């Protein structure tokens, strides 16, 4: 019994101290943003490795998710004779949910894990301490540009995912299954609201980008500097990102689409 209580206490304390360290880390990262302004090169390099290199996986996944939505939606909607609303169904599910969420999950797997591994290895090979020896703040030099890059890249990737998905749904719906092209777009335009759907989806993707990048960078920075530690930190990044994305998605959806 005492042992159980001990474990419970220890787990609580460690998780809270970790949360505290994480918040402090985030604060330091954010204050470092001012230092980016004179050195845009650092940011551009990171947007390249975080954003441009994730471009292909996002576009291809978006296309296929849209195409599958087109197929599945058509089968169900044609039961009710409502195939014309296929465009609305595809667009609403992509813009509101699948765009931000699936992009964030892919982003955590593709870019987040790479960030954790990179920073974890930097720590394990003592590059971070080396920087400190040279009076260069590793957070400002290494972490902040990566954080900002993830924060910028994620909403853009989510928008691309949704846009490509809608086109994918159109290819399947109007090209393969014979839904009217005009009805596909007009049903979509009549029912998708700019503020309620597009802006809220965009806000979601910003929040997910913020959280995923934060988790990835902090896990890397906080890693136990051994090869096993780095591997564990990378796993934790993907798992924790997935949990936070899906949990936050529920909360954000309840807040955004709750009333009306």
């Amino acid at each position, binding site marked *: 019994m005492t042992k159980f209580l001990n474990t419970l206490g220890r787990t609580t304390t460690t998780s809270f101290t970790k949360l505290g360290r994480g918040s402090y880390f985030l604060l330091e990262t954010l204050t470092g943003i001012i230092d980016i302004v004179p050195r845009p090169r650092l940011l551009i390099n990171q947007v390249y490795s975080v954003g441009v290199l994730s*471009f292909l996986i996002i576009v291809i996944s978006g296309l296929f998710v849209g195409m599958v939505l087109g197929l599945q939606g058509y089968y169900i909607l044609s039961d009710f004779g409502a195939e014309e609303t296929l465009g609305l169904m595809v667009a609403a599910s992509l813009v509101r949910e699948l765009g931000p969420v699936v992009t964030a999950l892919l982003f955590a797997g593709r870019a987040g894990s790479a960030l954790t591994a990179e920073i974890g290895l930097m720590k394990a090979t003592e590059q971070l301490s080396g920087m400190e020896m040279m009076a260069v703040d590793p957070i400002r030099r290494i972490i902040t540009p990566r954080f900002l890059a993830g924060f910028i890249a994620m909403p853009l990737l989510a928008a691309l995912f949704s846009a490509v998905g809608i086109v994918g749904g159109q290819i399947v719906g109007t090209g393969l299954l014979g839904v009217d092209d005009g009805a596909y*777009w007009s049903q979509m*335009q009549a029912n998708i609201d700019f503020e309620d*759907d*597009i802006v809220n989806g965009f806000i979601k993707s910003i929040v997910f980008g913020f959280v995923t990048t934060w988790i990835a960078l902090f896990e890397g920075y906080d890693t136990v500097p051994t090869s096993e530690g780095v591997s564990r930190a990378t796993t934790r990044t993907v798992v924790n990102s997935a949990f936070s994305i899906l949990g936050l998605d529920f909360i954000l959806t309840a807040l955004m689409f709750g009333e009306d």
Partner: protein
Amino acid sequence: MQHSNTQDTLVGLFVAAGIAGLFFLALQVSNLSSFVEEDSYTVSASFENSGGLKVKSPVSAAGVKIGQVKAISFDPKTYQSVVEMAIYSQYKTLPSDTTASVFTAGLLGEQYVNLEPGGSDEYLEDGGKIELTQSAIILEKAIGQFLFKSAEEKAEGKKK
């Protein structure tokens, strides 16, 4: 140097593609383009029952969308539903004896206001009121009346 130039180009392309995606969503997918439509004037109408009409429901004449519902409120004096409609300014020549009715698009579709122009020489102005209105057809009511009627007919048939 060469390498970093291509990288710049790729990052530029990436950001441009992302912003293009956002524009695509805003303009092609959502109803934003219908907001850009130039200014409008407001006309109101009182209905016995406005049914499932909602703010932003379309207002159409002869099947063409000429505006949208701006506000719906309940008038506590006349116990009627007051619907304010924003009509696009290019359709300024609606006669003052226009009839407004609440219709349903399709069997289960959304409800909209249909304006049927009358023959008056005077036109509706900003803040004007449409006097002739026809309420929404409430499906439950219609079914109820139908059932009641057929039951009545049956009863009469038995009497004879």
